[in-house]
């Protein structure tokens, strides 16, 4: 496993940094959409390395960060039902809902399981001790993880497993980007587009960025070399006045993406009219749900009576409200940075996170806190 070092070599990074240094005339504002990019930028100090040339703004691409409180409340409510095993990714476990988190519920004795891959759920479902249980998968993530959820459902159907349900929270990358650009009120010159999402979707989903909004869009991988290559291509597009979608991650991303994954997602999922994003509110056509013909696998349908009261409370504002001082919403839109928030590192830190961006390891605030530069 030496791949980890090939895209980090000090000489390559110094050379790229000096090319960027000579080609960038005035500082470029780049939003990296994905939390994985934010994490790499902070971990390797790329923002400090390029501090007079590139101003990195951190976007809404951390699926844990953008999950609204009310969806976590729903997962907790479902976990509270008798005979339910709630399965979730590790990252999601700590995220607080209105008054608890899945990890706290687990400590209280609820059956909450951390899984590494959706297919782990098959093992849980087929365990003879769990025959009478309902296994509910709290499915989250962008276009990268949706195909894995679809593959799980396909396998569940093929094996005639009848005790697996899905609480679907899958979201899409382009709608919040359009929402940020439509608001007009931003500094962004170009975007570093998420690498892993693009492996699945291909580059077509970013077409609006140069066409409609005249901004640069470059797909990049997550290693320092990838990120700097992406930044350099954006700088060149700006210098040459030709906004376009480009791929700086050709070892993984094809223009058309992964057709098999796209077909699988399309088979089981359809787009919701709207979905709530933390910090943004409702964004039209930004989330996915199971198609009607699979509603018997849909936890929102199966538990609709149980969730009814909770939903009424969320709608009336009794639950699911964010802390007013928290600037996560502004941070996710690239309008300010974590250390501009008055709570950062004081009332809000990883042990006691106030806002979503501090809760998830991939969140911008958590990355700033963890990798504080000097």
């Amino acid at each position, binding site marked *: *496993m*030496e*791949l*980890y*070092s090939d895209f*980090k070599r*000090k000489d390559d*990074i*110094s050379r790229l*940094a000096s090319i960027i240094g000579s080609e960038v005339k005035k500082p470029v504002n780049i939003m990296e959409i994905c939390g*994985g990019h934010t*994490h790499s930028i*902070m*971990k*390797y*100090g*790329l*923002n*400090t*390395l390029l*501090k007079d040339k590139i*101003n990195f703004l951190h976007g809404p691409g951390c*699926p*844990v960060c953008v999950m609204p409180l009310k969806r976590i409340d729903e997962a907790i409510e479902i976990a509270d039902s008798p005979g339910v095993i709630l399965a979730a*990714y*590790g*990252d*999601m*476990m*700590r995220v607080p809902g209105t008054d608890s988190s899945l*990890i706290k519920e687990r400590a209280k004795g609820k059956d909450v399981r*951390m*899984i*590494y891959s959706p297919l*782990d759920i098959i093992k849980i479902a087929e365990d003879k001790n769990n025959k009478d249980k309902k296994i509910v998968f709290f499915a*989250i*993530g*962008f276009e*990268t*993880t949706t195909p894995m959820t679809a593959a799980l459902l396909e396998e569940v159907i093929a094996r005639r497993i009848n005790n697996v349900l899905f609480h679907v929270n899958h979201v899409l990358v382009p709608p919040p980007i359009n929402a940020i650009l439509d608001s007009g009120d931003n500094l962004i010159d170009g975007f570093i587009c998420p690498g*892993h999402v693009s492996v699945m979707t291909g580059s077509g989903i970013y077409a609006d960025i140069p066409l409609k909004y005249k901004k640069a869009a470059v797909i990049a991988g997550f290693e*320092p070399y990838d990120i700097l290559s992406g930044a350099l291509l954006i700088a060149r597009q700006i210098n040459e006045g030709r906004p376009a979608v480009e791929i700086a991650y050709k070892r993984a991303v094809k223009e058309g993406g992964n057709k098999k994954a796209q077909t699988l997602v399309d088979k089981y999922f359809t787009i919701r009219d709207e979905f709530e994003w933390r910090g943004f509110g409702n964004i039209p056509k930004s989330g996915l749900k199971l198609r009607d013909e699979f509603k018997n696998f849909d936890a929102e349908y199966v538990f609709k009576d149980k969730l009814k009261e909770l939903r009424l409370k969320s709608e009336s504002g009794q639950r699911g409200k964010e802390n007013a001082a928290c600037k996560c919403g502004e941070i996710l839109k690239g309008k300010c*940075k*974590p*250390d501009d928030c008055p709570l*950062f*590192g004081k009332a809000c830190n*990883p*042990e006691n996170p106030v806002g979503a961006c501090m809760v998830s*390891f*991939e969140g911008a605030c958590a990355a*700033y*806190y*963890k*990798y*504080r*530069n*000097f």
Partner: protein
Amino acid sequence: MNKKKYERILLSHGGGGKETSELIGGIIFNGLYGRNGGSGDLHGLHNRHNDSGFAVNTSGQKIKLLDDAAVLKSPQNIAFTTDSFTVSPIFFKGGDIGKLSVAGTVNDLSVMGAKPLFLSLGLIIEEGFSSEDLIKIIKGISQEADKTGVMVVTGDTKVVPAGKADGIFINTSGIGEVLYDGLSVYNITPGDIIIVSGNVGDHGAAVMSQREGMEMDVEIESDCASLWDMINAVLGGGITVSAIRDATRGGLAAVLNEWAMAAGVDIYVEEDKIPVNGSVRGFCELLGFEPYQLACEGRAVFAVKPEFAEKALNILKSHPLGKNARIIGTACGNNNFGAETEGAGQAGGGRNGNGQELKKLKGKVILKGIYGVNRLLDYPSGELLPRIC
């Protein structure tokens, strides 16, 4: 104990009666003191120790078995420590919970300059636990104890109902004779050189990669080992050592942060000098961990006076457990880090993280990254949870 009769540990094995006696005699005593190297394949109580009623360990120490307490000759200055061990999986590449329970306590004594002499062994076993696994664990304890010349002189065994424990929990306490006194975190002063005795994060990565549900096929072995021999070589080599710590849970990052806070110094370490196995780094990249925050079970961190740094490093490198030892950084006055290094130009230059605010922080650990940017190496906190994508 008749293996066919008792393939699994039963509640009655903890009941204090005949079965308890069979368990202690057949598996534990025989594993620890048996003449046949602790294979545990035994039959009666009378076979498990020599005729005089004593067990004798490799260094000739004698201990009377089955009394309510061990009666020991105590040296002048003793060090005393205790540690409990719960690990999943119980058997992992490079060791098992038994080996770990000896090495962990031996290392806690060793880093205080104390030669490990005696151990207690407390077992809490879940009903239904495999007798064969227990035999393997006791064998691991016996072998590791023999390696260091430490002797298990007292113990206790309890069996709890199925579901009330995760297989087996072990507690060991240890007594050691202080041969080198005065080692303390409070001795660390600016200028001290920080040395680590080998690759960091191996144990954490080995255990996590084999955990149920993860089961990643990576070539990582735990570094689990007793360090007395190596530490004795350094301390006996005329080196002025301020403090030693074995990096366990929380890894290197926890040790350095504890030192910085307790001694009121900043500690400046350079990322490209910290030895990390390539597979461990790859494993961490994949899951979003930092190798510096993963557990080690056979690595010591030394703070030594600068004039002794090279000599200490050479002694470590000539010991089999210290082959990959490296000097990784220095202790320094507050914010006086890296003044003479090329990364210094970056200090205070970062847009993020309130550079000036951070400078007020006392007792912090600064990591000079591979591109020369300085950042905080934070104290690990919370449960290590793998990221989503």
